């Protein structure tokens, strides 16, 4: 059987490095997610959540985007339990 051409092997290795780099960068990223309806004295409270939590939240509309800010759609101080996507 013919082996993969050299350029494809190089692409595979490059892809592997990119994939691992994306996972590493992703695991180090954090987002500010503001609580809705908790504005006190003009100050918005927010949670800092990591990319893995953002992925989880994206599976059930746990975060919505308004302008440039992200807002939580649920109370993060309480245990969430299983939540399904409303769509």
């Amino acid at each position: 059987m013919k082996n993969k051409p050299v350029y494809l092997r190089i692409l595979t290795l490059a892809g592997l490095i990119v994939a691992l780099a994306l996972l590493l960068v992703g695991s180090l990223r954090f987002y500010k997610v503001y609580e809705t309806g908790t504005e006190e004295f003009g100050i918005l409270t927010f949670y800092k959540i990591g990319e893995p939590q953002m992925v989880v939240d994206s599976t059930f509309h746990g975060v919505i985007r308004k302008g440039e800010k992200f807002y939580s759609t649920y109370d993060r101080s309480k245990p969430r339990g299983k939540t399904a996507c409303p769509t």
Partner: protein
Amino acid sequence: MVSKRRISQIFSLILLHSSWGLELKWLCNPVLSCHSCVLSWFACPIGVFVQYSGYHLFPYIAIGTVLLVGLLLGKLLCGWVCPFGFLQDLLYKIPTRKFILPRWTGNIKYLVLIIMVFLLPFFLGEETMYSFCRICPASALQVTLPNMISSGFQAAPLATVVKLSVLVVVLLIVIFSSRAFCKVLCPIGALLAPLNFLSFWTVKLPTDNCVPCQKCDKACPADNSPSKRISAGKAPNRSLDCVVCHECRSVCPKKNRKNRYNQ
């Protein structure tokens, strides 16, 4: 006899939908299985891409995971794990007249991926009615239909009717054309297709002495003519539409016994 692939598909169907408590939804599993199903373990990469496009964020972990799995396995999960692929395989077994879709229809899935997964949610927001999630037949089967049944078939909104109609059309077409959804519409297939050329997973040639019996072509669920690549000495899975099912190997009458899958 039930093949190893069928056993893998049955186990995957059960295991992917058996999360009674713990979830691993920070991890994307590149198969068409909706994360809205309360029993699913993993996130659907397409659902995550749709949301992230609406958030105007780059999905580092989701893209990294899909790229990593794709580079390691190619489209192996499509053939051995995907529950919706399994359903299509079963429906295609219904004895009727069969047909092969024109080759150009295979390009539609790339447009679906670019337009309905990335562009429209980016410009119209993550909750747009025009994202792929709103027509996803796997989501309709796993989430929309059970929700309708549990609510006692109350008046359904137009979006639900559209979603269920797409499901019915897809299920009807896959009876007549093998893996038609995978070939034409599946955005995960579109993402993984180019990685078939790069993946470490290789379906080894069934034989060094290929006779043009074309049994592999008839067995191929993707109607992908593996005989051309086998007779040219290339791995049968080095093709955009191959679902890496290994059927071409298992039906080969000249199969070399010493030559096993590279797994």
